[in-house]
């Protein structure tokens, strides 16, 4: 378990800190299940479907958190040019895409019983779908074979552009929709049951913990990948040299 790579990093991605976060997240998830499915009441209007809120809203918050980290990592890479920021942006984009997909999926499942359809061209839905495409494009760009420096540079600019474009898309789409129809998501539920509110806040806390846990591991995996990539060349050179010596 205590093997180390050439760079002196551990050969696995867990650490005491990440294990604590992971245990907290797992325990929180169990508690959330109990609160969301058993203890909290069903909604008067929406019935049991309201329980989707305890996953949907936290997923959306984690999505925004990841997009924020993507922008931060990209901007700071351009300023400082240290690989850590690039790896952070990469990890945030991947985890962010997972939460974007989760937000869309739970939103559609929630939309079917409450609005009667899986999809409406609401501003928020459309923006989220566009975000999923933008993140997929960013990750596709990262996958293109290139040197580490070159990849980081392209990715940093592309990552910043995702964050810059998001408000533009949201603004244009919401304006586009409000011309045709009112906001589909009514914001009338000002009074929310105490237990429901607690479950929602618990869901958000668990979501953030899961995000942090995923980000830590993804960050470390990406870091190790980078090290392998860099070490790979040295290793190949050493092998060729050894072969040459045997030949001589």
């Amino acid at each position, binding site marked *: 378990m205590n093997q180390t790579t050439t760079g002196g990093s551990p050969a696995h991605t867990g650490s005491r800190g990440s294990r604590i976060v992971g245990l907290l997240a797992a325990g929180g998830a169990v508690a959330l299940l109990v609160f969301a499915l058993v203890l909290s009441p069903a909604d008067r209007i929406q019935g049991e479907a309201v329980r989707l809120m305890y996953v949907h809203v936290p997923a959306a918050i984690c999505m925004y958190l990841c997009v924020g980290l993507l922008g931060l990592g990209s901007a700071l890479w351009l300023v400082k040019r240290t690989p850590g920021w690039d790896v952070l942006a990469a990890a945030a984009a991947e985890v962010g895409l997972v939460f974007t997909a989760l937000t869309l999926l739970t939103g559609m499942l929630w939309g079917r019983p409450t609005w009667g359809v899986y999809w409406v061209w609401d501003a928020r839905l459309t923006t989220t779908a566009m975000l999923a495409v933008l993140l997929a494009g960013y990750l596709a760009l990262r996958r293109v074979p290139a040197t580490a420096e070159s990849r980081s540079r392209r990715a940093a*600019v*592309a990552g*910043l552009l995702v964050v*810059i474009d998001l408000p533009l*898309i949201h603004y244009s789409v919401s304006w586009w929709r409000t011309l045709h129809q009112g906001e589909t998501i009514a914001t009338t539920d000002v009074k929310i049951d105490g237990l429901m509110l607690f479950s929602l806040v618990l869901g958000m806390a668990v979501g953030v913990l899961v995000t942090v846990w995923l980000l830590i591991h993804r960050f470390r995996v990406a870091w190790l990948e980078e090290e392998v990539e860099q070490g790979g060349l040295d290793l190949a050179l050493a092998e060729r040299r050894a072969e040459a010596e045997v030949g001589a």
Partner: protein
Amino acid sequence: MLADARLIAGKDLRIERRARVATNQVAPFALLILVLFAFALDPDRGILDRATAGLYWVAVLLSTVLAVQRAYALESTDGLPDALRLSGLDPAAVFLGKTAALALQLLVLEALLLAGVVLLYTTELAGPALLAATCLAATLGLASAGSLYGVLAAGLRVRETLLPLLLLPVVAPVLIGATRAFEAALAGTPGEGWPWCGLLAIFAAIYVAFGMLAFGPLMEEL
């Protein structure tokens, strides 16, 4: 800086004038899209009439992808990337020059497509001031975003497939804004279209500013 930009734009336009890729390939492609839309949406049932603005801008967007690919394919051969880097030109000026050349080509293409919808879809051009302003603002936005993503994907072996995936979602606000503005103009209510034109101008301003800042690091990727 403006002199440098003019130099780059002049070079691109001169190459385009001699090679005629834009006139012989991109422009016919754009007109072909208009014809394909007519095949897909029966022209006798009035769908084309109602959808003209949207179809027009989708045709412009798809042609933009081609034009951007062409603009950066120019730079990626014969050691030109090194020449451009060693030329000592300000990266912001290179960006402005590429954007200006691209914008000019797109404007010509848009004029051609407008003639196309007038002839093929029997559209009557109302609100010419709004139409012209929308074309200008949208083209500047498309050209600057296209230049940025063009250089981002330049030099990659998969650029033909990657560029549309990167560029098209980003220019979605242009499609929305330009379509709404055109709809308002063609319907004879240009007052509703001007705010959309403003949105297009904001989009263009943001991308021109960001492009001028980000082109420096990206020039090394050509």
